[in-house]
């Protein structure tokens, strides 16, 4: 129960930080923001890695491996495309 409570703490506070930080993101960058948060949420790959490596059951290994594929493609693809988009945003030569 203590672990549950401390997890709840983490969840609520992280959600709050997310709210405050993301509110400040300019609408200009909403698309790269979404692909970045998507890549970050693919941190779920760590759960899949443990599952695929523990050899507890065949089902767990198979599902874990598939989950690694799905999450890793988000990590790699998400970071690549976010960076590609951000590279395109340039200021005009004369600053207003």
């Amino acid at each position: 129960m203590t672990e549950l409570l401390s997890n709840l703490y983490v969840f609520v506070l992280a959600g709050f930080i997310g709210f405050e930080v993301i509110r400040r993101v300019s609408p200009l960058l909403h698309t790269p923001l979404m692909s970045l948060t998507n890549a970050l949420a693919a941190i779920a790959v760590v759960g899949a890695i443990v599952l695929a490596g523990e050899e507890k059951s065949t089902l767990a290994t198979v599902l874990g491996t598939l989950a690694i594929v799905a999450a890793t493609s988000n990590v790699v693809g998400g970071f690549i495309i976010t960076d590609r988009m951000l590279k395109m945003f340039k200021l005009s030569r004369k600053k207003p």
Partner: protein
Amino acid sequence: MDLPGSHLIEIVYLAAGVLFILSLKWMSSPDTARRGVWAGEIGMLLAICGTLLHHGIVDYRWIAAGLVLGSIIGARLGQVQMTAVPQRTALSHAFGALCVTLVGTAEFYLRAPDVPGFTMAVLTLEVLLGSLTFTGSLMAAGKLQEILPQRPITYKGQNFVNLALLACAIGAAAMLSADPSQTYLFPGILAMGLAFGVLMVTPIGGADMPTVISLLNSYAGLSAAAMGFVLGNKLLIVAGALDGSSGFILSVIMSKAMNRSFTNVLFGAFGQVQTAGAAAGEAKPVRSATAEEAGSILSSAGKVVIVPGYGMAVAQAQHKVRELYDILVKQGVDVSFAIHPVAGRMPGHMNVLLAEADIPYDKLHDMDEVNPEFHQTDVALIIGANDVTNPAARTDPSSPIYGMPILDVDGARVVMVVKRGMSPGFAGIDNPLYYLDRTLMLFGDAKSFVGAIVRELSGGGHR
């Protein structure tokens, strides 16, 4: 559990969590945003390397295979065209949700029935959210890629069927949480989640995609956070909460920009209902102009605001628009862009398309910035946008889009609309803007018409 190794992993996870928050903080401005991506990448690398030290891992072969295959797929998905970014994003929500669903399913069959009630509740929540986000996002990606029809698909009693299915799924999840030995319920919950995802997105049309993508983003994040609770992994809880709140904020912004509530987007089925009303206003006269006339009006203007919509992207006209921008700026005209929050197929999509065409981002203004400026604007040039400029949203309470915040283009001295013909927009609503005295219709394909204006202006005669 008190092995030194597991403490090390916890500390690595903490560092990764801090980097993730910094990463999002740096996204607030284009100056620091790329640093944000690096912070995210370092955090991710740390977390993955830390996890590989986990003492429970005995076999690395499947892990390596999964990482390599996933990287190959990800590298391919990272190379899509900018117009296809909404589909790619929807697909990545699907992948994220798939990962969560698979891990949740595996955890269930490893642990059940010896799972405390609360953990089972979170586990079923994880699988339910994950499975409905998986199929829902696949549906959204299919609609955006135009594999599936973009028009909303509706039938009688649809909302009842959807809600009943969701209620059944939640009921089964509650039963399983109350008595974790009833393991037979689990496949049913999974199946109902998958089915609900399909049914949820079926009635949603292309114009509502920005809201739906944001909502699915939020669900994907929350399901990852739920997975963090099940595994007792705080980094996952942090990342899931950040993703969830980001998606939530974006969905709120999108629904506000369309003056609609979440429930209205999910259960309203826009597009189809209004087509009947459009037929009424057919015979009204409009004024049209040629590329030559449009060119001379533009080059004699002091301030021009260009209003791009998704139609511009469909016609691939953004590079021609960039040429027009260059010529007008060279002639001393003040040119800027007005971007409605729901222009494009996902939040911020239009900005990315214009940035790709090399238009400087300090010239891209959002609705609140630009609306007070239309009074001092000589020409508002609308390219491929319709409903977001419709003054009926301000003036006509009977209009289906009444109350939606719009770009006040009718404040400009001259309004020019590049449009293929007089057909109504996506939502099937007639636009009174087109019948104003100050409005000139420029009939033609966006790319070729803007190209013709560019030729007029660069062909000489104006120096």
